[in-house]
């Protein structure tokens, strides 16, 4: 007879196991002189804010580089068993890793982490905003240590990195950035996805050396955080001077987003003499418009039309600019007329969608009426 579930439970309960459990987590500290590629000491508040952060006073000595290794992806059953924290101390970079060798060490780990965190003002991470930090917050709650948790301003490098390199690299995991952007190669690295499995294997065997790879992986990640911050700061100091036009264009968009229009337009102008000409010029014109430099914006659209770029959008945008902001309804009518010749004509290749043509026709009709009124000199028909 096959044993039923009850029988199997009984059998399992009869076995007893020895119990050994140290209560203090393991603390590992590594110091090294700051290598030039990680030397973030010169990074300024302005540079940091160009990355999309809104920090009033950035002080590199108060910045904590954070990365955790966890037993899973989400929910109350996921534990951060390794908390790696790095910072600049004099001309050295220090990494302190807190390792939970078993569950009873977690409370101690969290307390040491809280003590360490207390000395800093900002957390620098890669995806920490939505992963590491909320997870730690949850762990403090579960350990009844919520009173020890403090919320921090954050500089999450995932977002500026994505804005900067996604066009060229697609999804931007940290390891890819290391390789393609920072030129760091890792040898024999443990992929992040295998970390939980490795930790559980360690728990079962008790063989701490299984975690060497994890510790190394985490240490490397923290070093990379510093290197990535430095590289991002450098990129945005001279965003137009990057090797790839895609990167220059992306940097332009990122700068436009955080209100650095001047720098952004510099990028778009550089990118506009590459294969990205059309996109870059569209962004450039938009940027001028936002800055209320309507004449420049109009010039940019004219340039595009002359180059055959931008399709009907360029014509329409130009017509709007001329009519509304430059007081030139006649010019607008002329451009609309040109657009219709170009896109509603017989050429099968250049025919625009019916709704675009229809919109153009409505615009033309309206502009014609307006022009007729102006010509007639009817009172109230003059431009404001």
């Amino acid at each position: 007879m096959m044993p039923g579930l009850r029988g199997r439970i009984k059998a399992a309960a009869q076995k007893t196991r020895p119990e050994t459990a140290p209560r203090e987590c393991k603390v590992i500290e590594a110091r090294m002189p700051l290598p030039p590629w990680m030397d973030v000491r010169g990074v300024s508040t302005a540079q940091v804010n160009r990355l999309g952060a809104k920090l009033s006073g950035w002080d590199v000595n108060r910045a904590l580089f954070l990365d955790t290794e966890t037993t899973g992806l989400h929910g109350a059953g996921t534990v951060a068993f390794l908390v790696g924290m790095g910072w600049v101390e004099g001309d050295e970079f220090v990494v302190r890793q807190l390792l939970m060798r078993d569950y009873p060490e977690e409370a101690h780990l969290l307390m040491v982490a809280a003590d360490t965190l207390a000395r800093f003002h900002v957390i620098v991470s890669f995806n920490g905003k939505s992963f590491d930090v909320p997870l730690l917050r949850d762990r403090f709650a579960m350990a009844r240590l919520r009173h020890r948790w403090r919320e921090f301003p954050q500089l999450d490098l995932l977002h500026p990195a994505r804005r900067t390199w996604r066009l060229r690299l697609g999804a931007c995991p940290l390891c890819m950035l290391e390789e393609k952007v920072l030129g760091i190669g890792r040898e024999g690295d443990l992929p992040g996805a295998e970390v939980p499995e490795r930790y559980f294997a360690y728990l079962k065997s008790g063989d701490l050396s299984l975690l060497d790879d994890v510790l190394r992986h985490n240490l490397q990640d923290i070093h990379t955080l510093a290197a990535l911050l430095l590289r991002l700061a450098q990129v945005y100091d001279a965003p137009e001077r990057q090797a790839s036009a895609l990167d220059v264009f992306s940097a332009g968009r990122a700068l436009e987003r955080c209100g650095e229009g001047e720098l952004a337009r510099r990028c778009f102008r550089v990118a506009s003499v590459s294969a990205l000409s059309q996109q870059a010029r569209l962004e450039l014109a938009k940027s001028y418009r936002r800055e209320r430099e309507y004449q420049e914006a109009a010039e940019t659209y004219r340039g595009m039309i002359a180059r055959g770029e931008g399709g009907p959008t360029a014509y329409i945008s130009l017509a709007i600019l001329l009519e509304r902001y430059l007081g030139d309804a006649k010019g607008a009518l002329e451009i609309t007329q040109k657009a219709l010749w170009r896109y509603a004509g017989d050429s099968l290749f250049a025919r625009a969608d019916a709704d675009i043509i229809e919109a153009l026709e409505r615009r033309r009709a309206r502009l014609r009426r307006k022009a007729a009124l102006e010509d007639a000199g009817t009172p109230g028909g003059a431009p404001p």
Partner: protein
Amino acid sequence: MNLEQILDSLRDSPAFMKNVTHWETVPARPARLASFPEGIDARVQAALRGRGVQSLYTHQRLAVDAVLAGENIVVVTPTASGKTLCYNLPVLNAILRNGDSRALYLFPTKALSADQSNELYTLVEAMGAPIKAYTYDGDTPAAARRSIRQAGHVVVTNPDMLHAAILPGHTKWVKLFENLKFIVIDEIHAYRGVFGSNLANVIRRLKRLAAFYGSTPRFICCSATIANPKELAEQITGEPMTLIDDNGAPTGERHMVFYNPPVVNRQLGIRKSSLLETRALSSLLVRNDVQTIVFARSRLQVEVLARYLKELIKDSLGNAGRVRGYRGGYLPTQRREIERGLRNGDITAVVATNALELGIDIGRLDACVLCGYPGTIASTWQQAGRAGRRRGTSLTLMVASSSALDQYIISHPEYFFKQSPENALANPDNLYILMNHIKCAAYELPFVEGEAFGAGEATEPMLAFLEEKGFLRRTGGQWHWSTEAFPAAEISLRSAGDENFMIIDITDAAHHVIIGEMDRYTVPMLLHEQAIYLHDARQYQVEKLDFEYKKAYIRQVEVDYYTDADLNTTLRVLNADKEDPDALPPRGLGEVLVTSMVTLFKKMKFGTHENLGFGPVDLPEMEMTTSACWWTLPKEAMRGLETDDLQGGMLGIASMLRQLAPLYLMCAPRDLSVLYHVRDTFTRKPTVYFYDNCPGGVGLAEKVYDMLPMLLDHAGEAIKHCACEGGCPSCVGPQAEVGPRGKLTAIRLLERLLS
């Protein structure tokens, strides 16, 4: 004619009355009122008065008093007796008193929660107080979730969402858990069997987390009429309950009429179709503009009856819309529209399946016609409860079908009226279910040594088992979740029987149409590939059955045969927990493995029923470990009986027991299965098994073990008193199955067993 006049004319009609087996009249009852209790916030009272509630019914007052006194309560009163006030009143009052207070409302389905929370929103709005009530379910947009977690005073959700999102992510719900004052479980009678056993464990997890965050919530439960509301609520919440069941709401005079269609073929025991009789009787009501609900047993019946009634009142004014069908498979917006139409009187008649049985608000109607016995006493009362206004007469008319169960009920009205409604049983300590939830609980919060999860089974051995399986790690006096997996994602609270397959008509390649749904237990029998499937009197052939994605693709055909699949069910005993070889009959109780598989189907010619050939069926085997009770036929009872007669007799007894056992166990027929083995490998004797139809069982087999002689006694009675000559579908089954002497042998065997 109005309803009173219709009732008078029916009473005077001998043609009608000769088929009536029972006419019960329940006199009208006035309202019993009570004032608002002391200490209820003036704003709540004002808002209620504004909505026309000047005072409370006595049961509402009792409920509120009990809650204010800190008791957990379960309120059992009929539909539309002001149940929701029993929880909205104390909950809103508590929040007004302390703005930090939180409450969690649980409804079995999304549709119900939408319906019931509307009432709450209106009340909150009328108060103008800063109380935030939100629905949190699969449809809640991600952006809204954060503010619900932080600021929702009342969170309205369902057990599935609680299980898979709120509990495993409890650290994001700290505000709710720290201040949880009330847990409201409405429609608690819906949580029976697997669903109820799961919910009981979800509640254990909820209470465990609440305790972690320092709160001890009170429970307010509401139930439709069942035999054991207090017991069920206590099983599910694990708390002592105060029962509030003395309804103070008024009701008008009610008539309950049992109608048995006349016999048309005495020899075969065939009666006139209940569908046709229902059609005729409901026509009478609808033609006279009596607002009526007709409950049909199947979706097909719904369509047929609705179409007929629509035809009946169709006129140039588009009046056909005053008759509507209502069943599972209709779109939610369409259902809401029908519910609204019923409430405001735009719709005169609705033909529904039991989808309208749960507490969806459709107001109350004048008449209810049941086409066939709904299967349980509780369901019958639930459905009958749809008719009956606070003032004025109402009618419930039950038309029996020719099934054994219907015939038993219709010819034993005293049984129906005397018997309490069925028990709703949940078994929170079903080992399989319990084990699943211990996993989830450990994920949510490590188990501490000595901690008990529920009161039934010892927790520690189960933790040790999970440790051995690698799910948990025991260290430092705690058990920690110790794998990457997310256990709640792998556990569904509802039984596999709740998962429906879509039936898709692909006759028109450009326009696939979903024509129906079927539960997964029936699918292998009726929708295997090449099966001829009948729908709406049309023939279809199944072209493809996609088991994984739960879809059957069918195409219209015209053939002169139908198909009949062979379901092969085997049962093997794993452990015998209890055995009594000396009892009469000898019996046992234990854990069994039930395997069922459809292996082949027969093609049968219409009319002649000739076998035209076989076809293979390639479908996965369904396996289930559950609890079973069995009894064997002792040698001395077989004395002097031919083998063939013996088999026929035993088959007959088994088929009678299959019909009767659910009645006396007070469960739904599909919850229990009966199987007969001519020579069982375990007992080595002719054996009849009763097993719980869900993995792990909910305790029905245990009950059978204790009441077996009584069951056999009733089976003998019923067979003896059946009017047929040598067996019919209403007793031992048709003669073709049990043989010419089947009925007689069954009676003789039962007499020997019980002497």
